[in-house]
C-alpha cells in the first residue's frame, strides 16, 4: 500500500462541481497553497470544479490560495469563522455584491462540527452562541440548568490539507501551529488529499508522534518546499500570475 500520488494535478483530479471542500489552514499557517493552485489550474483548463462550498477558518487573503479560488469564481459559498484578513478584498467585494454566500460559525463550533463529522456524531450541544444571532433558528436545550445550542456535524466530499511529514501509509505529522484544522478535516471528508513536505517509509514516523493516522488519509503528494501565503502576499503575488 502506497498512498503517494505523483503530481499535484493527479492529486486534485476528480473534484467535481458543487462539491464541499474543506481546506486546512488558519490564515496562511497550514494553507495547502500548492493543492489549491493545482485546483485552480484544473478549473482554468476544464471549467471545473466550480460552484464549490469551501470550509476554512477564513476566506482568503490577497490574491493567492483561497482568495484566488474566489477571484476565479469557483466558490459559491464559504463556511468560516473569520472572513477577514490583512487583505480581504476579494471575498469582501463578492460578498457585498451578493455573489458569494457566507455561513458564519464561531471558531470552536466550526472545529467541533468538523470533528463531529469525522467521529460519527450527527449533532451535539454547545454553550457557544446561545442567545446570539448566530444561534437563531437552531434548537436549544437545557442541561443541568444551563442553556445550550444544538449544532450539526459538518462533512465534506474532499479535504485539502498540508502536512509536514507523511509515511506511505498516510500517517501524518504537522509543523507547529500549521496543524490547526487539518487533523479534523482529514477525519470529516470522504476523500482526504494531503500535500506533504517530507515523505518517509513506514516506520519513519515515531508511532507515538503520529497526529493523523493513515486511516484518515486517502492520498498525498510530495511538495518539498511549500509556499507560505504570508510570504506570497508580502511579495504581492497573484495566482495565476498576472502577465503584463
Amino acid at each position: 500500500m502506497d498512498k503517494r500520488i505523483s503530481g499535484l494535478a493527479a492529486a486534485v483530479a476528480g473534484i467535481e462541481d458543487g462539491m464541499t471542500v474543506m481546506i486546512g489552514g488558519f490564515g496562511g499557517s497550514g494553507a495547502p497553497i500548492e493543492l489549491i493552485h493545482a485546483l485552480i489550474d484544473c478549473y482554468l483548463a476544464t471549467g471545473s470544479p466550480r460552484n464549490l462550498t469551501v470550509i476554512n477558518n477564513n476566506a482568503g487573503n490577497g490574491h493567492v490560495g483561497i482568495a484566488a479560488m474566489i477571484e476565479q469564481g469557483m466558490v459559491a459559498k464559504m463556511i468560516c469563522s473569520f472572513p477577514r484578513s490583512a487583505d480581504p478584498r476579494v471575498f469582501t467585494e463578492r460578498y457585498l455584491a451578493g455573489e458569494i454566500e457566507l455561513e458564519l460559525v464561531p471558531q470552536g463550533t466550526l472545529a467541533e462540527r468538523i470533528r463531529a463529522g469525522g467521529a460519527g456524531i450527527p449533532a451535539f450541544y454547545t454553550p457557544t452562541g446561545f442567545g446570539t444571532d448566530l444561534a437563531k433558528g437552531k434548537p436549544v436545550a437545557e442541561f443541568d440548568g444551563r442553556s445550550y445550542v444544538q449544532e450539526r456535524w459538518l462533512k465534506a466530499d474532499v479535504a485539502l490539507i498540508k502536512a509536514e511529514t507523511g509515511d506511505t501509509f498516510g500517517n501524518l505529522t504537522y509543523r507547529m501551529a500549521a496543524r490547526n484544522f487539518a487533523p479534523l478535516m482529514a477525519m470529516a471528508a470522504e476523500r482526504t488529499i494531503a500535500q506533504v513536505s517530507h515523505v518517509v517509509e513506514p516506520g519513519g514516523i515515531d508511532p507515538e508522534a503520529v497526529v493523523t493516522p493513515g486511516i484518515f488519509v486517502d492520498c498525498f503528494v510530495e511538495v518539498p518546499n511549500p509556499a507560505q501565503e504570508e510570504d506570497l502576499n508580502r511579495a504581492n503575488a497573484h495566482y495565476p500570475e498576472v502577465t503584463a
Partner: protein
Amino acid sequence: MTAKLTNAQIAWRAAQDIHDGAYVNLGIGFPEMVARFQPEGRQAIFHTENGILGFGEAPAPDQEDWDLINAGKKAVTIKPGTAFFHHADSFAMVRGGHLDVAILGAYQVAQNGDLANWSTGPKGVPAVGGAMDLVHGAKRVAVITDHVTKDGKPKLVAACTLPLTGVACVTRVYTSLAVVDIVDGRFVLREKLAALSLDELQSLTGAPLHLDGAVADLTCPEV
C-alpha cells in the same frame, strides 16, 4: 450432521473478502483468527479499540509488553507504520465510518441484519465493550459463526430473541456451512458446502434463505 468448516476455515473464508489496504477491526476471540489468513499479496491494516492502528502478530512467549495489547488484552507487536492514539480518536475511526470491515462473532443474526452478540440474558455480569460501536461504524459489518448453536438451534434467525448489539447492521454472515448476505431484510444465500442440500441448509436456518442468482460452492483449503 454434514461435515462443516472448522473455525479456522470460516476465518479463512472471511479473510478472502478483505481487500488490499483495508482497515479492519476483528472482534475479540474467534474473529482474531481472520488475521492469520490474509491472502498472499494483500496487506490489511488492523485496528484495535484501545488505540493502535497497524499492529502485528503476537510476540514470542515472555516477550510480551503489557502496554502493547489488543482489545482482547492479548499482547501484540508493532510493525513499521503503526500509530498510537487515545480512545476517543479510536472510536472516531469506528463510529465515523472509517473502518472498511468489522468482523464479529454472534449469538444470533436476524434476517434484517440485527445482531445479538453481547449478552445471553439477565444472568451474570453484563459486558459490552466496543461491539455496539463497531456495528454502527464500519463500512461493512460481517459475522463469522457456527451455523447453529452447540445444541443445534439456528443462529441465523427470523428475529433475535437475545438482547441486541445493533439494529440492521450486519450485511454478511460467514458460517460453518454457508455464506449468507443480508439484503433488504432477507437472507440471501451466496455460497454453501457442496455436500449440503439447500433443504438441509434451510432446516438449520431460522428464516427463509432466498436465492439471487447462482449459489457457489463454499470451498476452503485445509488450514
